[in-house]
């Protein structure tokens, strides 16, 4: 059962990622990207990461894809994107080489997998890991300041003179 679900999600994810690159109409490419985000959320559910699956739907499907679609709507002459650049073959070689090295490394590494059963629901432990003692509170604060400065920077960049 798990195997079938994983195979379906993996095939859909890889196919939609390829479609994002291959499809010429950039709006359809954005729709393929949304499909990819949803299948990634499904992969998170298979990994018992329920909170992150919801966050994936909210942040990626809800916010980032809408931002990308707005960008497509506002840049009108570029609906039919130009073809691939002249870096096509070197990029393919680089990608396949990197994939080969990484897969070789994954297969030849003996990961130490502990016996602990995975947590069934992760919201409370994740909150404790983020905000509890010896948690990531300072990192969280820095991330919040970074988000604020990113928003202010985006507004400052896009403002009409």
């Amino acid at each position, binding site marked *: 059962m798990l195997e079938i679900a994983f195979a379906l999600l993996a095939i859909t994810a890889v196919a939609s990622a390829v479609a994002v690159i291959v499809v010429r109409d950039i709006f359809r490419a954005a729709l393929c990207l949304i499909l990819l985000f949803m299948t990634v959320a499904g992969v998170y559910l298979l990994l018992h990461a329920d909170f*992150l699956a919801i966050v994936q739907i909210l942040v*990626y499907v809800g916010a980032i894809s809408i931002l990308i679609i707005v960008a497509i709507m506002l840049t009108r002459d570029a609906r039919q994107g130009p073809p691939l650049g002249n870096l096509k073959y070197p990029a393919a070689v680089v990608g396949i080489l990197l994939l080969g090295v990484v897969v070789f490394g994954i297969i030849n590494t003996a990961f130490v997998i502990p016996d602990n059963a995975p947590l069934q629901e992760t919201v409370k432990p994740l909150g404790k890991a983020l905000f509890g003692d010896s948690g990531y509170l300072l990192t969280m604060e820095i991330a919040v300041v970074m988000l604020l400065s990113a928003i202010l920077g985006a507004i400052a960049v896009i403002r009409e003179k």
Partner: protein
Amino acid sequence: MFSVGLDQYLILSAVLFCIGLFGVLTQRNVIKVIMCLEIMLNAVNIALIAFSQYITPVTLTGQVFAIFVMVVAAAEVAVGIAIIFTVYRNRESVDIENFNILKW
């Protein structure tokens, strides 16, 4: 039938990452470059959460890292699209050939 373990998730992540890398290196439309960047970030998140599930199942370190990756991705898209709008306003194009204003 194959069994699904850590290796399978990591290989899926590597495949998605390399597809995204190919797209970033080859696409001419800047919005598509940002979309391929998102594919790469999602691939990294899959790897982090798979490690979190199999290597640190109780402390959830990988999931915390994935949350920070999502925060950075959201900020990156907002700033990136603001820059694309600004260049589009000046150059009337989203072709990456026109993003050479800072080139010396």
